[in-house]
């Protein structure tokens, strides 16, 4: 035991190939990576609000993975549904926005121009708006401010 000081042996990667048992309904996972997810984040929040809140409340009760499988499946299905709709309607704006995010350290403030076109397209086609929960009530939300302090170099 004393020979295994923390850091003396590097952790070995372990992959468990066992799939979920058959009594758990199968849901296809969402194959989106981080930048498209970040781009779609606020729309997932607007579209899947009830399912997401259900899942969070369930997790707050009990952090065991097996406790919240049903709510988790609902979240996955709702997010997949929204992504499919987004791709159907606003694919080019979506791709432009997440490519811009990926070039800029995934910061929202650097990519306001593609974000505005994406927000306009999403509102027109799917009726979803981006709202920042917890934003100060009286002021304009930061993504709608015309001349922010933190911004990209070129307008």
């Amino acid at each position, binding site marked *: 035991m004393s020979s295994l000081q923390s850091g003396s042996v590097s*952790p070995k990667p372990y*992959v468990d190939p066992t799939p979920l048992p058959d009594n758990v309904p199968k849901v296809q996972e969402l194959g989106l990576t981080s930048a498209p997810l970040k781009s779609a984040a606020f729309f997932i929040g607007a579209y899947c609000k009830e399912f997401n809140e259900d899942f969070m409340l369930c997790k707050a009760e009990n952090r065991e993975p097996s406790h919240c499988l049903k709510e988790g499946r609902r979240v996955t299905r709702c997010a997949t549904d929204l992504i499919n709709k987004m791709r159907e309607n606003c694919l080019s704006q979506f791709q432009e926005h*997440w490519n811009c995010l990926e*070039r800029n350290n995934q910061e929202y403030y650097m990519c306001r121009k593609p974000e505005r076109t994406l927000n306009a397209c999403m509102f027109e086609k799917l009726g979803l708006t981006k709202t920042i929960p917890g934003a100060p009530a009286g002021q304009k939300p930061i993504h709608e401010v015309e001349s922010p302090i933190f911004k990209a170099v070129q307008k």
Partner: protein
Amino acid sequence: MPVPWEALIPFGLLTVMFGASGTLLNLSTRAQNLGKPIRFNIDNWDEMMMKRDEQLTGHKRGQRDDPAPPPGFETSSVWEAHPTR
């Protein structure tokens, strides 16, 4: 009157040396990040997401926007196992 061009050699040398090392650093970091600028201020959430990106695309900076994951994604998570004895 002859121009003192020898005095400009150090300026030239410094410009070339700074330029070369800066360019080399830029190219090296971009090459490691699939042609994109390097990511900074990465916290644990970003580490976790980049690990997931590697599972999905094979590279930490690879991105895809296809909602259907590649086959085997559900069981390809990598955990770090430590020896106990």
